[in-house]
């Protein structure tokens, strides 16, 4: 079913996708002429396939549950923010805060993601085939961030327990983020993630970064600073 945003209002398109008639079993949708609109495919809950043909604005596929969403173009700020489950695949580039606070599911970005990719992520798997900008995985709590290109400044600043895998150069690490040993279980997991994104790069080419866990508790030596 084709939903043309030149003919239909954004709100009616989203309402349609949010209220799928289970009896009719229509599970394939195409959204055409997105023209940079915001919040396209936000709040979907059913296991449906949606392809968006073109560039979209902010918060595309936000809060996604179960749906499989493909964006055939670039996305604006906060794609798949707070996603719970399902899959979002961006074929172009992503703007800042991609996958912000997402709890689960998979976010694949074929191009680059700009700053703050995976900020405060809480369990999502993010695979970026290009590079990520500064402050990526800032305060990230859980899940995996895979970067096949380079990472910008202050990667993983104030990190909790997210695993970050970077193949290229890291401009600088943020506070409390350090390089970690890549064990067998990490390689297996990384291989699985790369496979999900259709990439056959070898896990051995990546470096793993994680939390040094020095900010978890207050260090009494710093008391005079407060």
């Amino acid at each position: 079913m084709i939903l043309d945003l030149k003919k239909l209002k954004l709100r009616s398109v989203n309402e349609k996708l949010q209220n799928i008639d289970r009896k009719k079993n229509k599970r394939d949708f195409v959204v055409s002429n997105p023209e940079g609109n915001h919040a396209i495919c936000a709040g979907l809950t059913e296991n449906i396939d949606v392809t968006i043909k073109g560039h979209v604005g902010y918060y595309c596929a936000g809060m996604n549950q179960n749906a499989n969403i493909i964006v055939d173009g670039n996305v604006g700020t906060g794609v798949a923010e707070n996603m719970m489950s399902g899959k979002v695949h961006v074929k172009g580039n992503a703007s800042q805060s991609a996958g912000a606070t997402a709890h689960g599911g998979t976010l694949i970005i074929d191009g680059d993601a700009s700053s703050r990719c995976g900020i405060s992520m809480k369990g999502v798997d993010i695979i970026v085939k290009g590079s990520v900008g500064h402050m990526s995985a800032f305060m990230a709590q859980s899940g995996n961030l895979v970067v096949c290109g380079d990472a910008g400044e202050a990667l993983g600043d104030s990190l909790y327990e997210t695993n970050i895998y970077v193949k290229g150069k890291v401009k600088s690490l943020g506070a409390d983020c350090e390089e970690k040993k890549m064990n067998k279980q990490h390689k297996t997991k990384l291989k699985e993630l790369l496979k999900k994104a259709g990439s056959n790069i070898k896990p051995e080419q990546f470096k793993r970064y994680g939390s040094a866990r020095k900010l978890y508790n207050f260090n009494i030596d710093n008391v005079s600073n407060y």
Partner: protein
Amino acid sequence: MCGIVGIYLKSKKFEKSLGRMLSKMLISMESRGPDSAGFAIYNKNKNKIYKYSICLNEVSFEKFRKEIKKKIIFTKLDKNSDHIILKSTEKPSKIIPILESFKGISLVGYGKSIEIFKQVGKPSNVVKKFDLDNFSGTHAIGHTRMATESAITTDGSHPYSTGEDECLVHNGSLSNHNNLRRKLKKNGSKFNSDNDTEVAAGYISDSLKDRNLKQTLKKGLSDLGGFYTFIAGTHSGFAVLRDEIACKPAVIAETKDYVAISSEFQAMAHLPNVNNAKIFEPEPGIVYSWGR
């Protein structure tokens, strides 16, 4: 918030439709800036005529015409809503003090190729009022404002022009504009409002005396505090700069015919052939410029 837009034409193909392209961009940025809107449009100019963009505010056109006739030899007065483009071959050093001493009006910009129009109200109303659709030119910059730190007035609207053929639009807020205004005033700069962007425009004009636009903006990275995405225009083109934190958005679309920039992609969705354009975000702290 605020919305910023700009188009630089690489070829002559779209020169006649520049106004129409910009007007659609401004209207689609209304949600980012419903308080006021403005635009600067550049045309090639080979002769010696200077154009002074004037907002009449409450002054009537007849009164202005009568009084200014006694003081300035001008070749033409083009009225467009409450704005006037005064054309004269006389030097700016002579004309500007006269216009500045004229009570009630605002001189919003001057130069050989620039024309500036800005007014309070919804962008869709502002572009209609000035009939932007029928403008042509080589490049143009526009702004829709959501006022945060100074009043909603014509003087508080963007673009700001503080030098010949120069203009600036800004999305963001500056933290050190009061200090900088004091410093620039000591160097002889003049300001018409309490607005932070006007200070950045003044800073750029002051710095352009010894540097080119690219060098000026690069220096601005260390002198201007706060958040910003700037588009700075000159007679030859424009430059774009985002601060190093880069929380104010910008996206650029480049084709063989034009370069367009806006706060959000939706402002560019109607541009010709945009779906085949090279689309990218300007990286933080890097100056991008286009010019002829």
